[in-house]
């Protein structure tokens, strides 16, 4: 609610800007450090680089085999988002439209109760299982993200689908549409706001997640970007300029997406978490 007629508060604006500095300052230092020479890094944290060392980025790309990891991360993230949107909404639809039946009601509780299960309890066995089944690779990772997202996504999708009037579907059914057609042609498009929310949260999760690739991926060739940063940190922990160049390149894709779509992302996150 906007307080019409009142003047904007300068004091609160200034305080919020000061608070915002605590967010922007570490990121600014990261950028500056990534452009320094090792000598400049050692000399002072604050000082600006005398010349912009873009070579740090190419050197970091070479050392981390950046593009291989980037391709893996991009492949995993895009696949997970697409598969999640297409499959999780479908399951939620089946559950939401049959909640009067005990079987589907129990399925709903089954998925939701898994929200409380901490990852460490499945971590050890699932690693044995995926490696035994030859799934200790990006494809296995995609599988697990899509499956592990189900609990939360069903929670938010079911809440949203229940708010869609059944009459729309009944009209389609009368016109001769099958249940599948009804879902894909009528319900799925109506889910767009929730699809955006789920898509954004899934994208951030799959791109940034560290623990699942850490335990699942055994072959370094299949490492995702966060995993590469972890290995890289262990090997070159003192070469801060190269490390920071590498970190920035890992953060960059999400930051770019965020700058382009930030309003949409903020409202999407709000919707998903509140209306569920």
């Amino acid at each position, binding site marked *: 609610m906007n*307080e019409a007629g009142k003047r904007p508060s300068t004091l609160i604006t200034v305080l919020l800007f000061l608070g915002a500095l605590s967010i922007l300052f570490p990121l600014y230092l990261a950028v500056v450090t990534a452009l320094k020479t090792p000598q400049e890094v050692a000399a002072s944290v604050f000082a600006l680089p005398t010349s912009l060392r873009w070579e740090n980025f190419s050197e970091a790309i070479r050392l981390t085999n950046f593009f291989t990891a980037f391709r893996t991360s991009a492949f995993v993230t895009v696949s997970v988002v697409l598969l999640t949107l297409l*499959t999780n909404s479908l399951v939620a639809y089946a559950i939401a439209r049959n909640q009067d039946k005990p079987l589907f009601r129990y399925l709903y509780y089954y998925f939701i109760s898994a929200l409380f299960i901490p990852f460490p309890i499945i971590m050890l066995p699932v690693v044995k299982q995926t490696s035994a089944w030859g799934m200790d690779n990006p494809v296995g990772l995609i599988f697990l993200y899509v499956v592990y997202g189900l609990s939360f996504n069903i929670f938010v999708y079911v809440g949203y689908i229940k708010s869609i009037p059944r009459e729309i579907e009944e009209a389609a059914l009368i016109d001769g549409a*099958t249940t599948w057609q009804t879902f894909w042609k009528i319900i799925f498009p109506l889910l767009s706001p929730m699809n955006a929310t789920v898509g954004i949260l899934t994208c951030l999760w799959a*791109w940034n997640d*560290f623990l699942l690739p850490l335990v699942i991926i055994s072959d370094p060739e299949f490492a995702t970007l966060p995993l590469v940063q972890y290995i890289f940190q262990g090997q070159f922990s003192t070469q801060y300029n190269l490390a920071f160049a590498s970190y920035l390149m*890992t953060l960059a894709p*999400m930051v770019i997406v965020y700058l382009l779509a930030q309003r949409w992302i903020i409202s999407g996150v*709000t919707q998903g978490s509140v209306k569920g």
Partner: protein
Amino acid sequence: MSAISRAEVSSTSPPLRRRRRGNPTYLLMALPAVVLFFVFHTYPAIQGILYSFTNFKGYGDFDFVGLRNYLQIFQDERVLAAYRFTFGFAVLATVLVNVIALTVAIGLNSNIRFRNLLRAVYFLPNILSVLIVGFIFNYLFANLVPQIGQALGVAGLSKNILGDPGLAWTGILFVAVWQAAAFNIILYLAGLQTIPYDLYESADIDGAGPWQKFRNITFPMIAAFFTINMVLAMKGFLQVFDQIVALTGGGPGTSTESVSLLIYKGGFDGGQFAYQSANAVIFLIVLVVVSLAQTRFLQRREVEA
């Protein structure tokens, strides 16, 4: 044509709702997901519980040992220390995140300039990888903070706090709160926007001050959001992992070892597969109990308010 004939049929046959009861398509839609979820989530969880009663090392043969792992865990000082650290950290982080997030959200919801720009900045940390944020702060704690500490003459900050067993947790707390506040700010903001402005106007007429308005209008009106944020934050912080790996790796010594990190380390590298499985089962019970107790307690507050 077919549409008309179907409509006619349906007018004479039982109502749609009842006819759909046996629709097998819905079952088909849900079945693959249920199977996959069972295979990759429930089944490993059951396996984890079963392993917890064995002496499995992660390889080779094993025997069932009953409750031995569980009995040992309650006497294992390293495990108990991990629980103490994790709980202390999670409680502090949950309180701090919620106080900061609610304060910032109220600021962002008030009548200010550059509202959209500020909102965008405050949400930024949420899109960044926890691990990499941890690495960046690791550098700042090692290089920037000691410089500032020396300049200000504060002995505690003049060295790398991450290297001090008594202080390393503050660094982890700082980074975790720095990042997690973003998400809660957005949720509180969503809650604040549901409060009708009339309420504040009538409070103004009654002569209420800012604190009275917060206590009697704002806080009760967003009680449900407060519950969600407290439960989500607590559950997330109890499972803290990435920040610790990036900042201290659990050290110095084992002073910042969280339960998740201990299960990971002991389970994969320490040959304690079964032992840490038992720890994970206890962790599961603890998490469920804490989440349920929190929800109960906070929801009762909601009603009173």
